[in-house]
């Protein structure tokens, strides 16, 4: 944690220093060499209070506490290079690192002694080439995310867009995420005691309090081998086709529509999510191996007068697990000066339950699929907060710190989950 804090401060100083070597280019000259165009450093702190954790099958007692903290830091670098044929090539590289604690994670071990913290890293890379004369752009991207003991995720995407003659733009983006979920199961389901009762050839995986998994190999009931860190994993694949259209409606208004077609297959639950049946026994959640999702999003932004902007968003979502949701949000940036704005916002969200969800001790052992993960329960949530944006033409403190954005959000769910998040974005140019 201390290392991460020092890294963030270090990155800030490094970029302040690096940009101080450049002079501002205000001419129309378009660099044909690769040029560092923009750097964003984004930090965020998230804190959550909740009960009914999925790890403890939605229990409401002290074992079901779902408190979470997350300290996320990321850096995005944008390089631009103009080609001889008036093509603009943009290269975006990013690296993020999160440090989180999760009270429920400790209960992967039935006594609550498992490691309750973790670190996630996620590098990204995107290349976009824009043909100004044809008004088209094409892009390729790659993404990787990993938390050593839980999963690895590789993402790939390609996109194409075309601007119309009437201030509109069509876009298509195809993405895939290829995940490997490590099968770390609650300790009571892989105890050494049950392994010793094995009378035939078998491999038993034992989850330790630290979150590591030990593989024990038995032949004719006798232990013949033991190795650490051989957690088995299962695949989860996500394929998305995103279609978008944006349009300038008049001098003050523009809007967009985005439709995603999403198909997921593979292991779609998490192996350490317990479910308690109505007969008192417990097991691991079991969900179908396929899910189709259809989210449709609409945005409409309107410049009201000279100082107020209305940013509105609506999303309808439906999937084949029976979950439907509606999201509405409104943000109102108020320009107190041309370079300083305050943006209060409000978001309302409502969803129906997935047909495989039931609370603690409600599922029957006869059910084919079952989960007590409250992310799939029926609930409404509300979020409100405020953002500040400062972007003076001569920079903040230094010419190269182009803008500073701070955003705070308070979030409540009717499942008794309450969270707060504060984020900062420093943009250098």
């Amino acid at each position, binding site marked *: 944690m201390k290392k991460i804090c020092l890294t963030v401060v270090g990155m800030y100083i490094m970029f302040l220093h690096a940009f101080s070597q450049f002079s501002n280019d205000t001419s129309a000259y378009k660099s044909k060499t690769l040029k560092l165009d923009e750097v964003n450093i984004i930090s965020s702190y998230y804190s959550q209070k909740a009960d009914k954790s999925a790890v403890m099958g939605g229990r409401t007692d002290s074992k079901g506490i779902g408190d979470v903290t997350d300290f996320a830091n990321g850096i995005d670098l944008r390089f631009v290079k103009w080609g001889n044929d008036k093509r603009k090539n943009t290269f975006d590289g990013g690296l993020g690192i999160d440090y989180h604690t999760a009270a429920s994670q400790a209960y992967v071990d039935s006594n609550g002694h498992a490691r309750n913290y973790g670190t996630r890293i996620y590098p990204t890379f995107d290349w976009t080439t824009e043909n100004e004369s044809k008004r088209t752009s094409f892009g390729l991207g790659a993404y990787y995310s990993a938390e050593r003991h839980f999963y690895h995720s590789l993402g790939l995407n390609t996109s194409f867009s075309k601007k119309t003659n009437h201030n509109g733009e069509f876009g298509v983006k195809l993405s895939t995420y290829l995940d490997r979920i490590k099968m770390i199961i609650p300790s009571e389901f892989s105890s050494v005691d049950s392994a010793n009762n094995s009378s035939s050839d078998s491999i038993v995986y034992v989850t330790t309090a630290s979150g590591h998994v030990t593989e024990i190999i038995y032949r004719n009931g006798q232990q013949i081998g033991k190795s650490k860190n051989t957690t088995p994993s299962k695949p989860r694949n996500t394929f998305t086709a995103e279609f978008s259209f944006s349009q300038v409606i008049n001098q003050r208004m523009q809007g967009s529509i985005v439709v995603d077609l999403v198909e997921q297959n593979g292991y779609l639950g998490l192996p350490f999510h317990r479910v308690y049946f109505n007969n008192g026994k417990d097991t691991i959640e079991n969900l179908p191996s396929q899910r189709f999702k259809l989210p449709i999003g609409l945005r409409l932004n309107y410049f009201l007068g000279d100082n107020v*902007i209305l940013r509105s968003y609506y999303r309808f979502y439906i999937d084949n697990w029976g979950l439907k949701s509606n999201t509405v949000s409104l943000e109102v940036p108020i320009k107190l000066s041309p370079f300083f704005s305050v943006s209060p916002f409000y978001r309302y969200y409502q969803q129906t339950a997935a047909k495989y969800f039931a609370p603690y001790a409600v599922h029957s052992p006869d059910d084919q699929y079952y989960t007590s993960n409250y992310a799939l329960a029926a609930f409404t949530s509300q979020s409100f907060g405020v953002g500040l*944006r400062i972007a003076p033409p001569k920079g903040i403190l230094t010419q190269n710190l182009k803008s500073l954005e701070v955003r705070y959000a308070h979030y409540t769910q009717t499942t008794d989950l309450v969270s707060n998040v504060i984020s900062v974005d420093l943009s250098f140019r």
Partner: protein
Amino acid sequence: MTQAQNSLLKCAFAFLLSIIIISCSNVKAYQKSRINDAEMTLSNRKVEKNELNVQSYREGSSGANGGKTGGGCGCN
């Protein structure tokens, strides 16, 4: 969502769509000073990134907002 809320939502959409259609006009490049304002962008702000990430894990739905539709440690 009740039937009354559904009807209300449909009426609101129809009303909004009518306003949009009525107010359509051809906008020249030099008339886009407001449209090109940084606050008018049709995508999420970078500073919202972690907030959207958390929402996609804590809620059952995701997508159609420029963010992730799957992948990673959450169930979505």
